[in-house]
């Protein structure tokens, strides 16, 4: 089962969903804090859901306040970077570029893509953490005490 967990994790990296920052987070886990990455991940998805909601509302209003949108996206990109959410981070960067260019259509398009990537990552990570918990502490805990 642990091999299955390892394979799933590897595919997340290979397919570009996660980058080396995720590995940095795993390095910080130990016997005392074996669920650190899962906890950070939960925080990330709670935070980002709120940001997505804010951006959705702002876009729905029709008036494009690019400064405000850029500010939301700065936060989104920041936390995505901290957790190693590579594809989401890329979409955030693109969105910000469209903001700076004042390109409303580009923003809308990119935001749809961002939401898709975000939802996909969420599902994949939830699956990964679930399996990792079932497989036992050996796979998730990395740092020796």
């Amino acid at each position, binding site marked *: 089962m642990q091999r299955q967990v390892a394979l799933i994790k590897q595919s997340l990296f290979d397919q570009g969903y996660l980058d080396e920052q995720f590995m*940095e987070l795993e390095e*910080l886990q130990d016997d005392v804090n074996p669920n*650190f990455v899962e906890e950070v991940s939960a*925080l990330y998805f709670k*935070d980002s859901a709120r940001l997505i909601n804010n951006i959705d509302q702002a876009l729905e209003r029709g008036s494009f306040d690019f400064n405000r949108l850029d500010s939301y996206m700065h936060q989104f990109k*920041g936390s995505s*970077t*901290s*957790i190693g959410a590579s594809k989401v981070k890329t979409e955030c960067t693109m969105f910000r570029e469209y903001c700076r260019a004042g390109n409303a259509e580009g923003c809308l398009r990119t935001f749809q893509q961002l939401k898709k990537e975000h939802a996909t990552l969420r599902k994949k990570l939830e699956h990964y953490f679930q399996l990792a918990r079932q497989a036992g502490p050996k796979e998730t805990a990395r740092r020796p005490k």
Partner: protein
Amino acid sequence: MAEVLLPRKMEIAKDPSKFGSSDLLHVLAVDDSHVDRKFIERLLRVSSCKVTVVDSATRALQYLGLDVEDKSIGFEDLKVNLIMTDYSMPGMTGYELLKKIKESSAFRQVPVVIMSSENILPRIDRCLEEGAEDFLLKPVKLSDVTRIRDSLMKVEDLSCTKSIKKRKLEVTENVYSLDSSAPSQLKRAKI
């Protein structure tokens, strides 16, 4: 140590170390991002530091006792060895926080490290000019934290060694002065 009334949002990390807390570096971390706060707190704990985390520059000033306009003296008894702050925060930025800390008599000697996700050279220059100890690009690495911690520990060690040497010499002087047979021409080297 002064007792500080803590606002609800402040998170105080429990010190899990088996050493006395006076031996550990106490770091105040400031970041408006919940994810980043959790991350930096973990990095610091793993590096054997005592951590206090707050979610804004305003709360940092409250914690330090610098939030009162007419009394920018600060809590004199509060031991903070390092302040790590995010640059871009709503309300007061990390740069403005840095300035306020450097203006205070109680905390101007405390090294302040700025963290930012954006690699903007004028920003970095401005922070360093204002007295920031270092400027870290996010995501912060564990190696960044241990490097800063190690250099701070060296400074702590040096000042500790100095005060131990001084005390030893003072004790020796007392012993000599009690002994009346000691030659009065004994010269003592200045520290």
